[in-house]
């Protein structure tokens, strides 16, 4: 009678997560006044599939993430500051006042990558240390909700990071002005961010429950992110070129998109296995 639910039985979570109606449950019907007591609600919720509430749960998780981040400010300011500092370091390391083309694209992507790793390292730490996993696992919700919430959180962090880092880059190191190349650059960054978020979340969940979590996270993530760097840097390079800057080659956008899609699916399929016991 019970339908298969991803996460509970450990099967790869492939079923849809769009809001569906609750399956007619075997247990309690709502009270006459329409206001359900918690017990009735539990029985109803327990009998129904958890999919219908996934959106609400993701919202609740996201809200919790952003609240904690705003209170502690332990991820985003660090990431942004790291990026700006790294640009300064590059200036001295390369002994250049301004860069363009391939070099500019490379510096930008490497810096963003390492700053993102900082955020990835901290993504699940609060949950692992303060029992957040247990709290979530006890709730009658679709386990994938945590994946979505964390990916969205990381995306938000990356967005703020780039809000600071890209203008800083334009100011400190970039030779040609960003100007009309900016919308295309934003598009490329967005595609890259999706991949970084998907892989970063998966790797963060993998690393956080190990002993050397701060070391294993980057070691796992960097090779997996190399194709993103390839696609992102190659796509950005013509945008940051001196003189007449052309648009990004479609080939690289496709590479990024394909990579995002594949690893997004993989993260979705495997994430439940990292949570359950």
């Amino acid at each position, binding site marked *: 009678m019970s339908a298969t639910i991803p996460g509970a039985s450990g099967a790869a979570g492939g079923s849809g997560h769009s809001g569906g109606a609750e399956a007619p449950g075997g247990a309690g019907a709502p009270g006459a006044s329409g206001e359900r007591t918690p017990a009735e609600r539990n029985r109803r919720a327990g009998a129904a599939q958890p999919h219908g509430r996934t959106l609400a749960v993701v919202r609740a998780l996201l809200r919790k993430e952003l609240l904690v981040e705003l209170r502690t400010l332990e991820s985003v300011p660090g990431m942004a500051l790291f990026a700006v500092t790294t640009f300064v370091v590059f200036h001295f390391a390369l002994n250049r006042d301004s860069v363009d083309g391939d070099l500019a694209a490379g510096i930008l992507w490497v810096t963003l990558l390492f700053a993102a790793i900082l955020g990835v390292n901290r993504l699940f730490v609060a949950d692992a240390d303060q029992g957040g996993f247990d709290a979530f696992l006890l709730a009658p919700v679709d386990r994938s909700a945590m994946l979505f919430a964390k990916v969205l959180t990381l995306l938000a962090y990356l967005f703020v990071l780039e809000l600071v880092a890209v203008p800083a880059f334009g100011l400190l190191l970039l030779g040609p002005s960003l100007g009309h190349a900016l919308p295309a650059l934003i598009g490329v960054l967005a595609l890259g961010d999706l991949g970084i978020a998907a892989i970063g979340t998966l790797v963060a969940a993998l690393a956080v429950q190990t002993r050397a979590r701060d070391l294993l996270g980057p070691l*796992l993530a960097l090779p997996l992110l190399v194709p993103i760097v390839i696609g992102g840097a190659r796509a950005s390079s013509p945008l940051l070129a001196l003189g007449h800057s052309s648009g990004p080659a479609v080939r690289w956008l496709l590479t990024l998109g394909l990579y995002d899609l594949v690893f997004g699916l993989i993260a979705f399929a495997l994430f439940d296995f990292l949570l359950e016991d």
Partner: protein
Amino acid sequence: MSPARRYFAGGSDTTRSSAGAVRYGAGLRTLSVATIAVMTIALALVFFWAPLEAEQGFLQKIFYVHVPLAITALCGFVLGGIFAIAYLRTRDSRWDMRSYVAIHMSLIFGVATLITGSIWAKGSWGHWWVWNEPTLVSFLIVFLLYATYQPLRFAIEDPERQSRYAAVFAITAGAFVPLNFIAVRASSAYLHPRVLGATSNLPWQMALTFLVSLLGIVLLFTTLCKYELTVKHTRMQLRALRRLAERREDVTAGVAPTSRPRSAAPGVHATAMSANPVHPASGPASAERARRPSS
């Protein structure tokens, strides 16, 4: 249902131990002989029969070692991912062990690939490392990724979680291998006609030599893996038996048994109480257990 039957009736929810009658050692000798035979033939062909290539001369013969090593290692990595999927589906720790051994062996073959590739590069282009050889470059990235496999396992103490997380890693990395190759190849400015692409227009003597060599390396891989699996499995069974003997004494004294030392290598999660058909010694033990009423 007897307690023993119920123990195994859990289906995919139960972590099964060495329940099936798998004899890892079976066929090991035949395989070893075959490996040595084929590899000897391959070496003979490489050195005495295959024609010298015009451009590179004798150095080109490394191709017969380097490329099969690369292919085998890559397939081994992907196989490790496939075994990991089987583990997640069945929760049978034997799949986890196979996944571990496949990846472990592929890593070793990967080192060999990089070394032989480096020698070839030095001979052909004068540098120990070249960036314009996309296969070599993607191999380096894959190698760097899989080098974290053992540290990852070693950093997780709970054995069941270790297997599960390692499986997730193996699947992710296994999917990464082909994608990485595509990405690196697309980014390479110069596509060298050598290596994998070259096999299509080889003279037939070279092609044959290559195939024999490939077969030899694949057999070597399989034999080494089987050997390692057998050793591990035997060690696990020994340990399980020892625990069974210890526990018999401990249970009456009410002492908790000690856990095994941490290691990066997975083990078959054999609880000593399992009715193991491979070992006749445990037969009477399980029968006795069936007779004892469950408290």
